[in-house]
Each structure stands twice: as C-alpha cells, then as structure tokens.
C-alpha cells in the first residue's frame, strides 16, 4: 500500500482536477475574511456580475485595523471605518456570517476560528492573511492567499495551486524551565533562516510537539510562514479532540464519533517520504529573542549578536543595514539592553494560555517605570476568560494596560503604534522594519520573556527572574 504523509492525504482529497502542466484546482472547505484584504475581491465580483457561490463556507470578522479602545463607539479613523463598514455591507449582501466588533465572538480571525470550532482536522482553510497557517495546529491544510484568490474562493470555492514540497520537522525531548513553544519556533527559524522552508509545507512532529497544548501548537504553526513555508500542520490527537469537543461548530452526537474515526486516519504513514526532514533536540532550546529585522535573526537571549564573520557582498550589507536600523552592533550581548514597550497579543500569542503565563509571572510584581505595557487579548472570549480567572486584575495591578481585541500593535494599522526609534519586545510574529509603526524597533520573544522584560525594563532571561 502507498505510504502517504498527512499533508498528501488532505491535499489529494481536495483536488477537483489537476491541470496538465499546471496547478491543481483546489477545493477550500472554510474561508475566513477580514476587512483589509476582502473589499477589492468583493468589488471585482460586482464588476464581473457574479456573487458568492457558497456563503456558508466563509466567515468574517474585522480585526486588522480596528481600534482596541472604545469599540462600542464609531471608529474615528475614516479609512478604517470605511473598510469595516464595507465588510458589514458585503456580509449582509451575500449572507456571510460576521462576528462584528462588540459581539461575543469578535476577535482576531485566527483566534476565533478555533474557538468556534470552525477549524477542524482534515479541512482546507484559507484567508487573505499569511498567518492562516495557525489553523494547521488542528491537522488542517491552512495557508494565506492574496486578494485575487480571495475573489476566486468567494466566486467558486476553489483556487489554483501547485502542490508544495513536504518537510517534516521533528522536535524530541522535554523542554527546559522557562522555555515555551514560541522559543521552539523562533529557534527553528533561526536555524533554517527566514527562507529556509520556502516552497515547502511543514509537518511538525516528535515528542516535544505532541506534549504541547493546542494554544502552544497554534503558536508554532502560526509562524511557519516566517521561515517561508506556506503552512505547517500537526497530526490531530486526543489533545486536539479535547479542545474541539463541545465547541459551537464542532460535530456533536453520532457525528462526533464519526468525525473522530476519520480524524484518527489523519496521520503520516510509517515509511512515508518527505522531501526534507529535520530533527531538533528540545534540550538545545532556550529562551529566544530576535535582534534584527526578519524573524530568522534570532538568538538565545543569553547569546551575543552574531558578528559579520564569514559574510560578504549583499549578505553582509543587508545584515549591517538591519543592525543599523535596530541600533545594535555585531558581537555585543543583547541581555541588559533597555526597552520602552512590551506588547502581549496577536494571532501568535494572544490566547488565554499566553495571558495566563504572563499574569502568573508578573503576579505580585510591578512593571518597570520606563515600560509601557500593552496586553491585547486575541478575542472577546479570551478577554472574558481572563477576567473570570482574575488575570486582568493581576495584570492591571502590575501596571499593564488591557485593551480590546484586535491585531493591534502586531502590525500597527490602528493607533497602537510604537514610536520611531523605540524598542518593543513583542509576542507577535514579525520584526520587519516599521512593522509596529514607522521607525519602531521590534524584538520578538515568548510571553514569559516579555513578562520578564516588563518587570526589569531590560532584555532579561526569564529564568533569572524565576530564580528571584
């Protein structure tokens, strides 16, 4: 019998037709849309005189540009308001389910999909956002698409895709104290570079990955795109089923049993072949932080910024340009550098487990006076739970400012901008130039490291704060 990977099984089950010497006509089970990458797609549908073919397969929420204060009021920024209103208009016109600002399930699209149980094993899921890879944590093929493809999905429920190559990344062993799934993925990206998985779809496997919660798995799959992979996925298991059971859109009753029986087949067969296989030992992974302007530029927080030894040409020029932007020098330690802002949130680390970790860490401490600390829950549901668990009170006591759900300072489309030249240690996913505001300097890290930085006001090893 043919040995297949998990990825092959799901992909092949969704090919409507293979175009000779071309891509596959690829069927999409679920489509998420938001206010920024959908308006032009709807506009083009109108120009073509066609509608939305399967409205029940699309779910919408405004997240990218929404304010994180006073969400009950009219959005002040005119352009943001227009995009959100356009989304409302289009959803009403075509009968698309919308989780609007202020509603019970409003939030970042990649947080609410799993929360609602829309995201399920074996599915194909797309959204006009590269962090759609998050949903791969459930054993789904999920990836980001451009607006032309959003239009295709709305019009036909299909896109034209060439099948990517397959990579398996295994992580084995127990994680050390103070090391989180964010450190795992930052470590992997630092090892293989921001382009190391371009052209591939990644399956994450191994005992370390299996031991992670769904929230932690989502953090890993979320950042697959940061090493160039279209997406990453993890085979579903009991952890997945426990998370999904009872969710609004999860199967129930007999359907649940049937679904689990099918989901149990979603495994990579023993002996299946990958185009590339990589293995890492959990024992080598320590708290990580980025020092440059792409997510591949990461080091252990205790390490020095790499020197330019062995670099030449445009490689060296680009490296120095990046350090110049950050205001860092090759070879210097990163520990102890002063920080101005911390941001806890985003589709990478804006879930309840992340907020819990920060709250437990800062309980009984105060943030440093020099630090502005923003905490932005990924969804209303996360916000509600954080309140119910008393986490909000702990965080506010420590001097954190709790905001309302949205993408917020991860990409700074709203007013949550880090000022030019200031340093932010952030739980988000991208440290590109200007990502958190023009001239802002971003260092990516885990929620624990961010919590430690909030308390000391400097780049800090979270394990040190633990000891004190």
């Amino acid at each position: 019998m043919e040995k297949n990977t998990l990825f092959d099984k799901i992909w092949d089950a969704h090919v409507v037709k293979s175009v000779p010497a071309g891509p596959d006509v690829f069927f999409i089970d679920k489509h998420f849309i938001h206010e920024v990458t959908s308006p032009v797609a709807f506009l083009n549908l109108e120009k073509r005189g066609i509608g939305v073919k399967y409205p029940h397969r699309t779910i919408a929420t405004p997240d990218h540009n929404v304010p994180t204060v006073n969400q009950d009021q009219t959005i002040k920024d005119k352009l943001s308001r227009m995009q959100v209103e356009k989304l409302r208009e289009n959803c009403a016109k075509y009968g698309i389910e919308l989780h609007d600002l202020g509603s019970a399930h409003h939030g970042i699209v990649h947080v609410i999909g799993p929360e609602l149980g829309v995201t399920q094993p074996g599915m194909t899921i797309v959204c006009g956002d590269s962090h759609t890879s998050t949903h791969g944590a459930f054993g789904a093929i999920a990836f980001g698409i451009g607006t032309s493809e959003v239009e295709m999905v709305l019009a036909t429920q299909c896109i034209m895709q060439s099948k990517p190559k397959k990579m398996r990344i295994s992580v084995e062993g127990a994680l050390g104290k103070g090391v989180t799934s964010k450190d795992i993925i930052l470590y992997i990206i630092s090892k293989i570079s921001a382009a190391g998985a371009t052209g591939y779809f990644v399956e994450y496997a191994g005992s370390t990955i299996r031991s992670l919660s769904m929230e932690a798995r989502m953090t890993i799959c979320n950042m697959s795109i940061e090493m160039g992979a279209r997406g990453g996925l993890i085979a579903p298991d009991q952890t997945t089923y426990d998370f999904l059971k009872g969710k609004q859109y999860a199967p129930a009753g007999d359907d649940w049993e049937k679904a689990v029986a099918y989901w149990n087949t979603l495994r990579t067969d023993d002996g299946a072949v990958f185009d590339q296989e990589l293995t890492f030992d959990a024992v080598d992974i320590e708290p990580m932080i980025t020092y440059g302007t792409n997510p591949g530029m990461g080091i252990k927080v205790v390490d020095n910024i790499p020197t330019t030894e062995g670099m030449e040409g445009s490689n060296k020029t680009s490296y120095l340009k990046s350090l110049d932007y950050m205001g860092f020098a090759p070879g210097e330690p990163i520990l102890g550098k002063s920080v101005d802002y911390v941001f806890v949130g985003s589709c990478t680390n804006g879930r309840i487990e992340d907020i819990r970790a920060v709250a437990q860490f800062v309980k009984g401490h105060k943030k440093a006076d020099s630090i502005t600390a923003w905490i932005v829950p990924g969804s209303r549901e996360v916000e509600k739970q954080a309140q119910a668990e008393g986490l909000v009170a702990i965080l506010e006591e420590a001097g954190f400012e709790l905001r309302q759900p949205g993408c917020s300072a991860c990409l700074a489309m709203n007013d949550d901008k880090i000022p030019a030249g200031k340093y932010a240690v952030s739980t988000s996913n991208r440290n590109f130039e200007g990502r958190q505001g023009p001239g802002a300097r971003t260092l990516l890290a885990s929620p624990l490291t961010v919590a430690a930085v909030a308390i000391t006001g400097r780049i800090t090893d979270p394990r040190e704060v633990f000891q004190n």
Partner: protein
Amino acid sequence: MAYDKFTILQSTAVPLSTENVDTDQIIPARFLKATEREGFGDNLFRDWRYDSAGTPKADFVLNDSTYSGKILVAGKNFGCGSSREHAVWALYDYGFRCVVSSFFADIFKNNCLNIGVLPVTVAPAFADKLFAAIAADPLTEVEINLPQQMITLLATGDAESFDINEYKKDNMQHGFDDIDYLINMATEIEGFEANR
C-alpha cells in the same frame, strides 16, 4: 481582473540588491486601508523612499534618476512576509511589469502571477551579473522573453532560461486570470462540493 498581456519586454532595470525584502517594506500596513485598487504606486517602498516629513530620501534607488525601467532586479528572498497582494499592486501601479530575483517568497510569487507581474527566478550568479551590468551602465537593457522563457542582457548577449508552468505562461501571454478558468469549471466544482 484581467491585466495587460505579457510577451516580450525590453527595458532598463532598477537594482535593489537588499536581501529579505518583506512586503511590509514594499507597502507598509498603514497604506492598506483602501477599498479599491487605486494609487498604491505612490506608497511603494514608502518608508525607504520618503522620510517622516515626506521628503524623498536621496540614497534610495527609486529616487535616483540614474535608474528607471519596467524591470526590478531584487535581492534574494524578495517578497517574504505578509500575503498582502497590495505589494504587487503597488509594484504594478508604479510601472514594474517584471521582478527578477534569485529567490522569491511563495505567496508573493503567486500574487505576481495572478495580477500580471512576471516573477523571473535566475541563478544567483546571473543575478550578480545583472547587478554588475546595471551598475556599470544604468542604461543597459534587459530582455524578458516569455514565449522563449529567456532573460537576456542585451549588451553582452548573456542569457539564461527561466521556469514557469505552461498554464501560468499561457495566462500571462493572454492576460487571463484564474477566475475565468474556475468559473468555466462550475459544474465540476458543484459536484465536488456536494460530496463534502
């Protein structure tokens, strides 16, 4: 939507050898707030092109009148990061019809092909040759021949072939997009959907 056909392009080229240029640099997020696909070229490479007061930065290649053309020769891992198609809209709107690099990010490359900007992947050595030739003579012309799948430095005749699948090649040459193809498959897709 349909775009201009692409067959043979002869043009001078603009060099941007920086590596890992992400789509946040090509078009920063704060310029994604439009509800129509108009005017993105004005904000192409906004924060590299202009300072915070809106004054052009003299050291950025798009502000250097020595260089111009419809071809952008870019450093490796061009277009990484966000899936925003607006990055390609900005390149197209500015006047670029082709981007040449030794390595492209996946989603960016797909987005290019979907709106009629041809991504041409060359060997790193050929990319170096292009950068050197443009530096030596900014008026040197490059030919992109899509039917033949060849890129040529016209002054020296140095040439290399490039890959593109037949389906996308045909689309580019006729200005078709995928949606036309998919709409024609409606019956097959309906049958498939009914069984899911």
